[in-house]
């Protein structure tokens, strides 16, 4: 079986350059990593606006990001990843950005993979593109329990949204204005990506997964322990099942 190469956007692609575009970088205690992430994003696209959402860090994350010239939104206390990322979507929406990518501040998302994420959005094939660790051959190493958890979630989500989803917890994403407007209005809380996938389906937006490589965490600590992951698992399963029965939120209106 041969695998087709994923189409990629080249640097300076006219479809890309024409758009107001932004990278949303949620960061919690990533003073050692966030500057490298900013540099790497700029290496791909120097004109990509970067907003770092500091989710109540107790180190110098904000100062480190500001020193690199990124826009910094500093939350007064820790909101959790969902609240932090939504802050980024609100920023993107209110400032008229037409294209957003989300790159986590811990360095696990490699900005060199952005071209793969951007192609389906620029081609108008998808409203949201998710980088999947498991869609291709990739050799992503991760703890066994975690992998089992992701597999269970992937199965349940695929069943609910009637589309094969392999990595429903991936936060490495590219979004167009429709998806930005939806998430600016309504975004789930912890482990938000799983429930967001169901929201995308219910709002009839088009989601596409592309295979990407992800890196091991470079610095900082993972926010999830072993017992907590079982708790999150149950909560996320509850959330996605309930989400199927929920009335749709109204995306923010253009003014």
């Amino acid at each position, binding site marked *: 079986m041969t695998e087709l190469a994923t189409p990629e956007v080249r640097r300076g692609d006219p479809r890309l350059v024409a758009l107001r575009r932004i990278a949303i970088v949620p960061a919690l205690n990533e003073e050692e990593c966030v500057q490298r992430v900013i540099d790497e994003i700029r290496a791909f696209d120097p004109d990509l606006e970067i907003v770092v959402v500091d989710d109540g860090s107790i180190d110098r994350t904000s100062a480190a990001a500001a020193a690199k010239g990124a826009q910094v939104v500093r939350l007064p206390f820790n909101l959790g990843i969902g609240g932090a990322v939504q802050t980024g979507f609100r920023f993107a929406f209110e400032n008229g950005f037409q294209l957003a990518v989300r790159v986590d501040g811990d360095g696990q998302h490699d900005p060199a993979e952005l071209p793969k994420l951007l192609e389906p959005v620029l081609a108008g094939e998808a409203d949201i593109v998710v980088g999947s660790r498991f869609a291709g051959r990739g050799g992503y190493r991760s703890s066994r329990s975690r992998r089992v958890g992701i597999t269970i979630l992937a199965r349940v989500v695929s069943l609910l949204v009637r589309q094969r989803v392999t990595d429903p917890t991936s936060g490495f994403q590219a979004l167009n204005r429709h998806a930005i407007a939806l998430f600016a209005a309504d975004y789930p*809380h912890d482990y938000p990506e799983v429930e967001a996938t169901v929201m995308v389906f219910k709002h009839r937006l088009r989601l596409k997964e592309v295979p990407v490589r992800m890196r091991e965490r470079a610095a900082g600590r993972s926010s999830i322990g072993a017992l907590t992951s079982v708790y999150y698992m149950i909560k996320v399963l509850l959330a996605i099942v309930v989400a199927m029965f929920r009335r749709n939120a109204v995306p923010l209106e253009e003014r």
Partner: protein
Amino acid sequence: MTPLPIAIAAAVASFALLVIVFELIRSRRLRERYALLWLLTGFVMLALSLWRGGLNTIAGWAGVETYPPAVLFAVAALFVIVVLLHYSTVISKLADQNTILAQRLALLERELEEKEA
């Protein structure tokens, strides 16, 4: 053995709790995070009220020989205490965050006034 009417009443009440909690989550009046304890309460109470033999056995362990439904009430009371304690911690955290927000807002207002002056 638990009298049947008590078992039925307890089962209906537990089921009603589950339905209400589900509806509250669905209509976004209750976050999943704060619903899990209630759902656990509902499921445990439902199980104990339907499974009368089991309740008898547990009552035997606890040395309750005359009236097994007492165990049902004890378990319900325990869960309510846990839920209340949990909410106390949640309220404390909210109060702390509220203080921080008020302080940030007041400082920002002052800064704004200074810039306008």
